[in-house]
């Protein structure tokens, strides 16, 4: 009997920029180690595969206790006053900052990362219930998304896999 290949499945439920990357980075590492990768996008995580949204993911400083001003070069761990987080422009500002930091490190964009994963053999699926709820269609998703599947389908296709919920 052939040896069963190791399998990992990620469930991406968040659409914020910082929460988009964990599955991409780990999925890429998994493919690099010869592990089968399946990624299931649900709820806000569908922004990652939504053509209209994937290039515009954001990170809001509001209610993010870990985002300190040292990101902007201010020494120490001075916080960003929560009241400042509501000022229009703060979210785009924080997003631009994070994107430029990633860019300097040579980290691909979310769109490019997904393409790399697909090219490496990862399987991408959208969650049926979320798709129905948000009124989306398969055409709204980037190329590489295999199909829209139910939670039950996901359970079937991830038999024996290690599942990581993000």
């Amino acid at each position, binding site marked *: 009997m052939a040896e069963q*290949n190791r399998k990992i499945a990620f469930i991406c439920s968040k659409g914020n920029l910082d929460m988009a990357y964990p599955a991409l980075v780990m999925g890429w590492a998994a493919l*690099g180690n010869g592990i089968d990768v399946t990624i299931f996008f649900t709820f806000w995580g569908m922004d990652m595969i939504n053509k209209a949204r994937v290039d515009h993911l954001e990170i809001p400083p509001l209610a993010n206790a870990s985002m300190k001003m040292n990101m902007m070069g201010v020494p120490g761990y001075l916080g960003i006053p929560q009241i400042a987080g509501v000022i229009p422009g703060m979210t785009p500002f924080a997003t631009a900052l994070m994107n430029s930091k990633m860019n300097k490190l040579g980290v691909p964009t979310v769109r490019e990362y997904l393409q790399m994963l697909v*090219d490496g053999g990862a399987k991408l699926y959208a969650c049926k219930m979320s798709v129905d709820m948000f009124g989306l269609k398969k055409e709204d998703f980037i190329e590489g998304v295999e199909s829209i599947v139910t939670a039950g389908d996901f359970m079937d296709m991830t038999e024996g896999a290690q599942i990581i919920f993000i």
Partner: protein
Amino acid sequence: MSTKTIAGKTVQVNDEGFMTNPSEWSKEIAIEFAKEEGIPELTPAHWKIVDFCRQFGVNGGKAPTLRQITTSTGVSTKEMFALFPKGPAKKVARVSGLGKPEGCV
């Protein structure tokens, strides 16, 4: 650290089977390592990648990551997975007599 006899030569390898002294490498060794990695024959397309990795490793002392390979050689991710299935960067690093690639992309 241990040694391994491959293609008639004894080379130094680490616990994971990666060569630790790139200067001990030869083309014959590459062919044998490729067989161990499930690649029966190294085609010119394989050699193009191996040559790039050798050059990269000799200059920097480290194996390139998959993204470094694809962006520098123009060989696509898809092709890389076809040439070196299941973990291209790791396999090509081993075939090229380099250590395991470091870095997340």
